[in-house]
């Protein structure tokens, strides 16, 4: 069998660094996480400053779930159970997640989903 050439492939790139041009979207902001603080307080500044972006991703995940399960029953079930799941997570992660949900003004269950998404997504 003859495989077709990858239509999106290209020759190896050179001279891309320092990042500029069309493939470079920007740098990322820096934050300090103080591990001496109680877990609930560690992420407050970051979660507060990124609350709009967090709400956007949470709302989108909900929209995707509605597409696959239009009745909304699964979504309601998950929302009610995820907060409980959060309480079963090991210390200090459970408390850090609670602190993020509070600071970002997002439901605890939603932040729990965001934090366990990898385990669900690997299917």
């Amino acid at each position, binding site marked *: 069998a003859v*495989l077709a050439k*990858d*239509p*999106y*492939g*290209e020759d*190896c*790139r*050179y*001279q*891309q*660094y*320092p*990042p500029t041009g*069309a*493939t*470079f*979207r*920007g*740098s*990322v*902001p*820096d*934050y*300090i*996480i*103080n*591990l*001496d603080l109680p877990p609930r307080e560690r992420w407050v500044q*970051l*979660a507060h400053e*990124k609350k709009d*972006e*967090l709400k*956007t*991703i949470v709302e*989108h*995940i909900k*929209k*995707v779930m509605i597409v696959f399960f239009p009745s909304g029953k699964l979504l309601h079930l998950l929302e009610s*159970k995820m907060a409980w*799941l959060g309480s*079963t*997570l*090991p210390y200090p*992660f459970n408390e*850090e*997640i609670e602190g*993020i949900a509070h600071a*970002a003004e997002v439901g605890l269950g939603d*932040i729990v989903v*965001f*934090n*366990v998404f*990898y*385990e*669900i*997504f*690997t*299917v």
Partner: protein
Amino acid sequence: CTSIIAEDKAGKLYHARNLDFGLFLGWDIKNSSWIVTQILKPLMVSLDFQRNNKTVFRSANLAGYVGMVSGIRPGIFTLTMNERFSIDGGYIGVFEWIFGKRDGWWMGFLTRSVLENSTSYEEAKDRLTNARLLAPAYFILAGNQSGQGSVITRSRTAALDVWNLNASFGTWYVLETNYDRWKVPLAVDDRRTPAMKCMNRTMQQNVSLPALYNVLSTKPILNKLTVSTTLMEVSEGRIETYLRDCPDPCSPW
């Protein structure tokens, strides 16, 4: 995702990764991109975890996620994780957790714990190899000495393979996408072959963070799912993260 560890002729180790995420979670026709990938970009941050005003470890992370997908313990080791898809996937581990079997680690919590608490490459490798997990994963771990680099292929319960750097026998880099190294990647998602081609062209004597950035900027290693590129150099404790775009024509994954 694509993660690479490379060792130069002097034994210096470099570690870099593309973070790809958002497949099948909605396509934005207008902007020709995955919706989740675009939404995640403003959430990317660079974090410095400190105790007593001193850096313990640093990471490139998504705001709101307390686990780690890329991080560096300066002077000691660097770590990235790539998704590993399996029928025996994380949902089974989640169900087990819900029903009270809680002896496994959530992936992100394990990587966070390793970065926060492990004080050597060997200790980190041992934990990543032997800890019980809720979901399969690839851990890509590099130390600060020649030969200290490995790709650990994990099922939920065991290490299926540990692929080590061995520059004196020609293995001067290890490279992981989202497929077991002993299996052929899907023909429509082969980022491994072009990445290896570019690494081989780069050659060991030219390895550097800019060289790895070049490889990770080549399509389809750079693709529509790519959120960011992170570059790490352990001896200097250097970590740099850049948000990425992949203008058309560009592979959707």
